[in-house]
């Protein structure tokens, strides 16, 4: 056996030769994109990579940033925090100082904590983490880090905006909450209950349900419960299959309520809503959607969809993220995170989706922007050119929530490098 041990070790040496970091190719600005690129999670991870490449091609076509080309390198993290950390290490070895990541709060928390510790333990080689989708509030509150910037509104901010919107809808009487049984679902439920109590004490919370994450095949019993409760509105943080099946079961059973969601626009959502035949009943809260009447964005979106026909989904916030980072680099005249990070703090920026102004709050590195309630249904072809997933239906404006109505205080006590 000991022979096998030695043999294993020898093999390891052989393999190790392959692990040695490759020499740096050329002088580019490397952006490491660490998200799931294989397996189930890849359906969302690939979209971000496509989009970053699209942006990089565009910027490089115009001469790049600081005279250097932008290079996007994808690292497959298989949606596992542990694999992520190995991949981040790999990225750093390959000369990457900018990490972009979004999917999964578990992964986001791991990257934030890793980057913070790495910069502490390896002074002089700063690495920055640009977060485009992980929205656990702890990341910009108790666990906030100087080396982390967040472009998606976190749960608290989204709910602040959502409840501010609900405040104005007088026909809401009874609200039912259904969420996935994990930390995000609980954040949504707890915060909604607390905020509604404050802003609309007359609204009755008739149900507050949790179900295990991606384990439910049949949502009919839940729909029966919602129906029995007499709710007129359902608020849910569900995403992916849990949202699609929920909506489909509602359609099957003929449940007529309004749905307030965050992720109905995610892959499979529009198809499910169309199949369930729930026109103008499903709302989502995002930082932008295709049919927003803002010309520059629509042109870019058209070009993007033409290139990625099979996956025409994109995140407006990735445009904000890259745009702001490149601007900060230009201001600092350096692609070194230690130099450009201070420029990002407090930066004001006209958002991609609507051109309205947003800003990066210095206290917690959270980007604030106008948010939009949109509703899914049949389109007016002239003014609303974009449908979703070839359903013929698309997202339509329901309300704009201006930046000031999204502000939510932070508890972050930022430790800044000296």
């Amino acid at each position: 056996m000991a022979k096998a041990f030695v043999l294993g070790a020898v093999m390891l040496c052989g393999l190790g030769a392959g692990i040695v970091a490759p020499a740096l190719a050329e002088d580019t600005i490397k952006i490491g994109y660490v998200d799931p690129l294989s397996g189930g999670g890849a359906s969302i991870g690939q979209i971000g990579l496509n989009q970053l490449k699209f942006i990089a091609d565009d910027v490089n076509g115009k001469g790049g940033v600081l005279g250097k080309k932008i290079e996007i390198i994808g690292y497959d993290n298989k949606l596992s925090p542990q694999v992520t950390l190995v991949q981040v290490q790999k990225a750093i070895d390959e000369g990457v100082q900018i990490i972009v990541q979004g999917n999964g709060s578990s992964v986001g928390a791991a990257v934030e904590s890793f980057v913070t510790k790495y910069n502490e333990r390896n002074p002089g080689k700063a690495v920055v983490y640009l977060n485009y989708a992980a929205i656990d509030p702890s990341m910009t509150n108790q666990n906030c880090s100087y080396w982390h910037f967040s472009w998606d509104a976190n749960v608290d901010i989204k709910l602040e905006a959502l409840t501010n919107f609900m405040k104005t809808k007088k026909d809401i009487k009874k609200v039912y909450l259904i969420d996935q049984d994990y930390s995000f679902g609980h954040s949504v439920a707890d915060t909604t209950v607390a905020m509604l109590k404050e802003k609309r004490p007359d609204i009755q919370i008739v149900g507050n349900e949790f179900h295990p994450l991606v384990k439910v095949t049949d949502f009919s019993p839940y729909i029966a419960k919602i129906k029995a409760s007499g709710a007129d509105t359902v608020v849910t943080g569900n995403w992916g299959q849990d949202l699609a099946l929920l909506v489909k079961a509602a359609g099957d059973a003929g449940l007529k309520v309004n749905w307030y969601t965050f992720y109905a626009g995610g892959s499979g959502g529009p198809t499910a809503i169309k199949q369930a035949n729930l026109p103008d009943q499903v709302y989502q809260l995002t930082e932008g959607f295709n049919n927003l009447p803002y010309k520059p964005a629509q042109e870019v979106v058209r070009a993007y969809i033409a290139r990625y026909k099979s996956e025409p989904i994109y995140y407006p916030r990735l445009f904000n993220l890259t745009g702001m980072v490149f601007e900060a680099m230009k201001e600092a005249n350096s692609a070194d995170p230690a130099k450009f990070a201070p420029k990002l703090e407090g930066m004001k920026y006209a958002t991609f989706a609507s051109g309205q102004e947003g800003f990066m709050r210095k206290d917690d590195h959270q980007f604030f922007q106008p948010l939009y309630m949109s509703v899914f249904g049949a389109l007016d072809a002239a003014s609303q050119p974009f449908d979703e997933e070839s359903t013929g239906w698309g997202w339509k404006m329901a309300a704009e929530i201006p930046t000031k109505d999204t502000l939510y205080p932070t508890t972050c006590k930022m430790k800044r490098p000296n």
Partner: protein
Amino acid sequence: MSERTGAAPAFAAPPLPTGRGAGFLAIFGPWIAAAVLLAVLPQVLSSGLALSTLSLMGMMIIFALSYNMLLGQTGLLSFGQAVFFGLGGFLTVHAMNAFTADGPPLPLVALPLVGAAAGLFFGIVFGAVSTRRAGTTFAMITLGIGELVSSSALILRHFFGGEEGVSTDRTGLAPFLGLTFGSQLQVYYLISGWCFVSVAAMYALTRTPFGRICNAVRDNPHRVAFIGYDPQRVRFLSFSLSGLFAGIAGALAAINFEIMNAGQLGATQSGTVILMAFIGGVGSFGGPIIGAILVTYLQVALSDITDAWQLYFGLLFIAMVMFAPDGIAGLLARQQPLLRGRQLHRVLPAYALALVPGLAAVAGLSLAVEMTNRLTVHAGDGPAMSFLHVPLRADAIVPWLVAAILFAGGGWLFLRAAGVARQAYDEALAVVQGRGRTS
């Protein structure tokens, strides 16, 4: 591999075991070599990634070996080994946080003991439930327990930290000999130290009365009862001890990543360890070590090369199950008698002959896979791509023809050559044995 018990060829009887230790060097030599190797590896592979990967391999070696205590040594197919890995890790993380805040000044190096205790504890609890049965029933119980625990982990948010898990800072603990374990290098030495100790302990365990009875239970649990042993008790002990070592691996993961989350308890992690053990070879002690190193490497490196890595992985696994159920270690072990009988040179040309068309077939298959991938998953990047540094267009007919010819032709030639290689092996073996008998 000395205790490999597969179909060993019939030599004239070697001298009986004497029980007296062989020479010091014969027993401890390989271990010393391994220790030295572990010590100098970071000098050779010093990049951050290499250290991270080596650390990962270290903990996976322990994990895979702990799994093989069940599958290979005791014949228990478990689908829930990650439960012990994960629970060991979670308790370690909590212990680290407790000791950081205000606890006894326990150094970080001692923390895997927490994982070991947790693994042992849960091994005893779940073992009492599951090991009352063997075979398929046992496998299904472990599947159920695995699902139960990983689902509960998301619901019990305070202990398991919800989706984002529980994080910690390993440098906050009392320093050990002045080491704070901030750098990956120090962590590597911590992990390799524990890896060495655990591997040695698990190896020693196979050479005890208990270890041998485990093998007997694997071979024929029914008969074991008639030589005085309770097979259920043997399974229970083996399961508990296996939990202990899995707990150590989990603790090392906690120390290395400074974060634990519910995914570490789940089916994916349990599946990975089965792959490691099986690809490496469950029939020998060293097999899972090889498997852990190889699979970890592939997981880290393969996804850089292709995002269809899971397909290659699945195909590799199926090929192993079909053609080499003893795993890599089993393949190597079969060459051992030839090596000892100095007949290896007879078969190497035949192996090489089979290797060339085999590689061609693999290349053909892989080319087809990559081109398909390009046309479907990466349609947005256009059909121009490169394969093995050869630029080509995925929508042209020629590359597809090439792929088809490589795959079909290579495959056919490989099957022919494999027959030749097998014959060469049999002949060489016959020569060795013939010589053995006459001597």
